[in-house]
């Protein structure tokens, strides 16, 4: 009760401070007046009585202070006074304040943003109960294995082939017959499907899941019911779907009446039975959820283009399998039991060829989703490099704060001595210094919070392409913010308190008498110089790395793609098997080509797939007539030429020159003999001593396991293929109209009209042909190239920002330490000048000191850079990691900046008047 009344009283004193003060005054006045009256009755004269009463009462102000202390208000009063004093000091040196606060804010903000994103990308787990129990089943075997066809991802780890997917019939046998006691469940991301809902066609991502998926993931829909085993029991009959929370809000405005509505998915009517919880993202990825979840047995209806039936065949391995391992269950036992069933099931359905291995099954961490391995592979390194660089910036900001606080403390040494001499207690002075450091850090932290908060969502947006429509929301990570803020706060406190502590410990007389040549000051100057050299070294590293990334971006921007990327609008379309069976898809695209070509302002339309610079790669067998077929070698996947399916107008619309022979013409149709155009690289590599025109080659088998000949009719100039970073290589271009499994492609429209207006017109054209056909990934070819260089641009921008900040901080550091040294040596400089030294000698003396400092820092920085730079080798383009121009440029830039920063104090030193200087102390 005591604490509560005390707090209540303190609170009341705080909120009614004025009232309280006037009450205290009233009470004291009453006392003195009453005493005066009493004394007067004892015979004192009124004047004498009043004097006596005041005398007896004692020092009023001191007693009032005692009252405030009794109420716990004095502490607060002092804090307010400290804060006011600190604010005044900080306002008096706006340059110091601005640099300290902004460097803190940038360091804290950048680190919070980058670490939040990294944490989300690399460490976040699926939003399901106890995600750590989830395991993914992978098939592992030495090369070659019995797995021939694979829709999923496979990689080679430690010489072992590693597949993340299993053939469906084998999965069913495994789920039903294994003796591990575990309940296997399955899922598959099938990418985009065409969805028409509320009369609007759009593309939505879909995940197919087994009937026990929701039960095993332990997810209850926020609305409706989950997918049940009965939904997945009969192929083609489970026409139900759960939708993601984002899709629910985007398409249905979050209306509860969504249950029971039907969607047109690739021409199939699907009933919505539920809405997933907002945080649930499926089993594939942690950041992005598919829009639709449907039963696995609907795969025939939604996925086409494979040479084997996905539900009954064992040729294509495609299902991802997961399992929940209860705590305490033995993983080796489970793996052995699963492998046992799996291998007998494989033997029963596949006859291995000579030398082929049957895989074993292993269980891997599934808590971060299936795509985690990919994320780690693709983004792991860049993110870690970014983390390291931003960590360096944090370190730099700390060094800067340390340096500034040290310099400041030495300037205020005399002030502290004066205050000590006037009777201030040591604790009181330290508290003042502490308040000042805290105020500075708090300001920095506040702005840092703002930068971090905004940056955490801006960063992933920079990493992803805008037209993909994937919005990643990174939760603000308070822990990381607290860490970054805490580190800088601690540095500020440490370097604020230490000199203050040292200054208050010694005899104030010494501080007052002390002159420039005192030993203790020299020492603190040395520690200051060490910090500045360290700053320069860090800055060299940051500037050099930003130079490397900037040059990489410049090199990539200057690459000629081999086609004309200007005034090209591109978008993707997919023809669902149900509405456009067989050759219907190609016919649809021909209609689209003709219709769009008639739109106003369009000078040309072409079909291509995969589209240029999207990262997509198609290749297949390339058996040249009269030569032995190329043997597939694992260690050289580039031995097969890439291919592109294109329309007849492709070369003229893309403006790719035909070197020899001819381009496709009206005579090349679905029924005429198949033809192909090859590029110069292919001609050089595969026909080094002969003319390729007129030669024939066979590519992949069709559904009936038959290979067909294609005749080469022309050679075109080289172009880039899937990425700006990949060097040009062999490509053959085939007509899409004679592809039997053609389902969709990119349309490329050349026009000088503004992209938005053009898109609106084309949308009308497409809607007239089929209102259920969504246009996706609408972008200009330039945007596509920019997207291709997104990571490089992000790196160049961020590291350039870091580099600039580093330069600024380094110059501040050099300036600060040199200005301090000059002030300290004013006396000495005065003597030198009086003894006949030239002013230019004094100036170069100071500059020389700055130069040595900078040289030491740059040398150390270059050494660190050279040692670390091979880490970013794979991220550079067109230059060596030890790029002399970048490194020399960075070194030169830092030396110049250091000399410039040293120039001002040097000039000041040379202007010292000997008389003034000698009188100075």
């Amino acid at each position: 009760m005591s604490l509560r009344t005390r707090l209540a009283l303190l609170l009341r004193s705080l909120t009614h401070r004025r009232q309280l003060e006037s009450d205290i005054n009233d009470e004291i006045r009453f006392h003195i007046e009453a005493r005066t009256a009493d004394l007067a009755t004892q015979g004192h004269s009124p004047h004498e009585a009043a004097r006596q009463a005041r005398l007896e009462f004692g020092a009023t102000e001191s007693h009032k202070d005692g009252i405030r202390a009794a109420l716990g208000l004095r502490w607060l009063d002092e804090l307010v006074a400290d804060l006011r004093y600190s604010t005044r000091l900080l306002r008096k040196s706006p340059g110091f304040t601005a640099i300290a606060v902004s460097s803190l804010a940038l360091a804290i903000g950048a680190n919070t943003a980058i670490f939040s994103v990294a944490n989300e990308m690399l460490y976040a787990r699926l939003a399901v109960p106890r995600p750590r129990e989830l395991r993914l089943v992978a098939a592992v075997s030495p090369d070659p294995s019995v797995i021939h066809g694979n829709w999923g991802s496979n990689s080679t780890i430690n010489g072992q082939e590693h597949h993340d997917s299993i053939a469906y019939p084998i999965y069913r046998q495994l789920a039903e017959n294994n003796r591990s006691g575990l309940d296997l469940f399955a899922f598959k991301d099938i990418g985009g499907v065409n969805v028409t809902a509320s009369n609007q066609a759009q593309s939505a991502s879909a995940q197919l899941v087994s009937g026990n998926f929701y039960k095993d993931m332990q997810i209850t829909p926020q609305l409706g019911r989950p997918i049940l085993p009965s939904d997945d029991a009969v192929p083609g009959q489970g026409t139900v779907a759960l939708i993601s929370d984002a899709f629910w809000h985007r398409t249905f405005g979050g209306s509860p009446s969504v249950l029971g509505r039907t969607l047109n998915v690739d021409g199939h009517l699907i009933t919505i039975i539920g809405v997933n919880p907002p945080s649930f993202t499926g089993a594939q990825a942690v950041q992005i959820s598919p829009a639709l979840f449907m039963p696995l047995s609907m795969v025939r209806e939604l996925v086409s283009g494979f040479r084997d039936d996905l539900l009954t065949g064992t040729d294509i391995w495609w299902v991802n399998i997961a399992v929940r391992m209860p705590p305490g269950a033995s993983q080796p036992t489970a793996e052995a039991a699963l492998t046992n069933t799996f291998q007998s099931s494989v033997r029963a359905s596949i006859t291995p060829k000579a030398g082929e291995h049957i895989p074993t099954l292993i269980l891997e961490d599934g808590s971060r989703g299936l795509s985690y391995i990919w994320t780690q592979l693709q983004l792991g390194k860049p993110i870690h490099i970014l983390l390291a660089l931003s960590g360096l910036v944090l370190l730099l900001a700390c060094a800067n704060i340390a340096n500034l606080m040290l310099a400041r403390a030495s300037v205020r040494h005399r002030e502290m001595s004066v205050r000590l001499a006037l009777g201030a207690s040591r604790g009181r002075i330290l508290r003042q210094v502490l308040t000042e450091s805290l105020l500075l850090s708090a300001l920095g932290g506040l702005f840092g919070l703002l930068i971090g908060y905004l940056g955490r969502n801006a960063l992933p947006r920079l990493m992803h392409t805008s037209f993909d429509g994937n919005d990643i929301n990174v939760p603000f990570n308070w822990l990381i913010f607290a860490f970054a803020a805490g580190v800088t706060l601690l540095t500020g406190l440490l370097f604020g308190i230490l000199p203050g502590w040292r200054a208050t410990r010694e005899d104030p007389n010494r501080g007052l008498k002390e002159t420039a040549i005192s030993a203790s000051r020299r020492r603190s100057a040395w520690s200051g110089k060490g910090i500045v050299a360290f700053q320069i070294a860090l800055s060299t590293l940051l500037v050099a790395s930003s130079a490397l990334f900037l040059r990489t971006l410049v090199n990539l921007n200057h690459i000629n793609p081999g086609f004309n990327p200007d005034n090209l609008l591109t978008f993707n379309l997919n023809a669902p098997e149900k509405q456009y069976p067989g050759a219907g898809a190609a016919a649809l695209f021909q209609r689209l080509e003709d219709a769009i070509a008639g739109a106003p302002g369009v000078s040309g339309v072409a079909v291509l797939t995969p589209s240029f610079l999207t990262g997509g790669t198609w290749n297949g067998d390339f058996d040249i007539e009269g030569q032995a077929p190329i043997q597939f070698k694992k260690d050289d996947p580039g031995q097969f030429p890439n291919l592109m399916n294109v329309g007849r107008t492709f070369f003229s619309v893309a403006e790719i020159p035909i070197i020899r022979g001819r381009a496709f013409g009206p005579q090349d149709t679905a029924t005429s003999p198949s033809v192909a155009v090859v590029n110069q690289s292919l001609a050089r590599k595969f026909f080094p001593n002969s003319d390729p025109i007129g030669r024939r080659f066979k590519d992949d088998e069709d559904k009936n396991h038959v290979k067909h000949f294609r005749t080469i009719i022309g050679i075109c100039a080289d172009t880039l293929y899937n990425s700006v970073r990949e060097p040009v290589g062999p490509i053959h271009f085939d007509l899409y109209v004679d592809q039997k499994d053609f389902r969709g492609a990119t349309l490329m429209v050349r026009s000088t009209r503004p992209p938005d207006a053009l898109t609106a017109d084309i949308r009308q054209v497409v809607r007239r042909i089929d209102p259920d056909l969504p246009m996706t990934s609408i972008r200009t070819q330039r945007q596509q190239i920019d997207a291709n260089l997104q990571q490089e641009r992000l790196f160049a921008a961020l590291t350039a920002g870091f580099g600039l900040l580093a330069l600024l901080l380094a110059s501040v550091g050099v300036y600060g330490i040199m200005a301090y040294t000059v002030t300290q040596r004013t006396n000495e400089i005065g003597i030198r000048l009086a003894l006949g030294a030239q002013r230019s000698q004094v100036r170069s003396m100071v500059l020389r000191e700055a130069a040595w400092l900078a040289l030491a820092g740059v040398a150390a920085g270059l050494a660190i850079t050279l040692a670390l730079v091979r880490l970013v080798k794979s991220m550079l383009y067109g230059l060596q990691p030890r790029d002399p121009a970048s490194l020399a440029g960075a070194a030169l830039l830092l030396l110049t900046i250091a000399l410039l920063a040293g120039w001002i104090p040097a000039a000041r030193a040379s202007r010292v008047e000997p008389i003034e200087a000698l009188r100075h102390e």
Partner: protein
Amino acid sequence: MPKQIDLLQGTLEMLILKAVSLGPLHGYGVLGRIVQISGDQLIIQQGSLYPALYRLEAAGALATEWAPSENNRRAKFYTLTDLGRRQLTHETDRWREMSRIIAAILRLTAPQAPLQPHPAQEPRA
């Protein structure tokens, strides 16, 4: 005038509680009552009374109220709370104990022979 003595350190609060326990008082009244009871023998620095009063108020031992004084001036009156009453009893007991011990120590006159843990030494042969 009888000889005056300074107040012992730490006893002011106890005296205030005792004075207020006899009836509500304003600050000057507290002073008057203490001086009166002591027969003008205690010197109290008048101003230092107030920090002590506020401290007791903050601790919940005293309650306050603004009311007209005997000569109809506005004055702040202090009354003892239950907590204050308990504190007074506690401090009074402690004080009695303390003064009993101290008095006992001071009553002790110098012993005739020094206290020895062992019987007196035997005279040497």
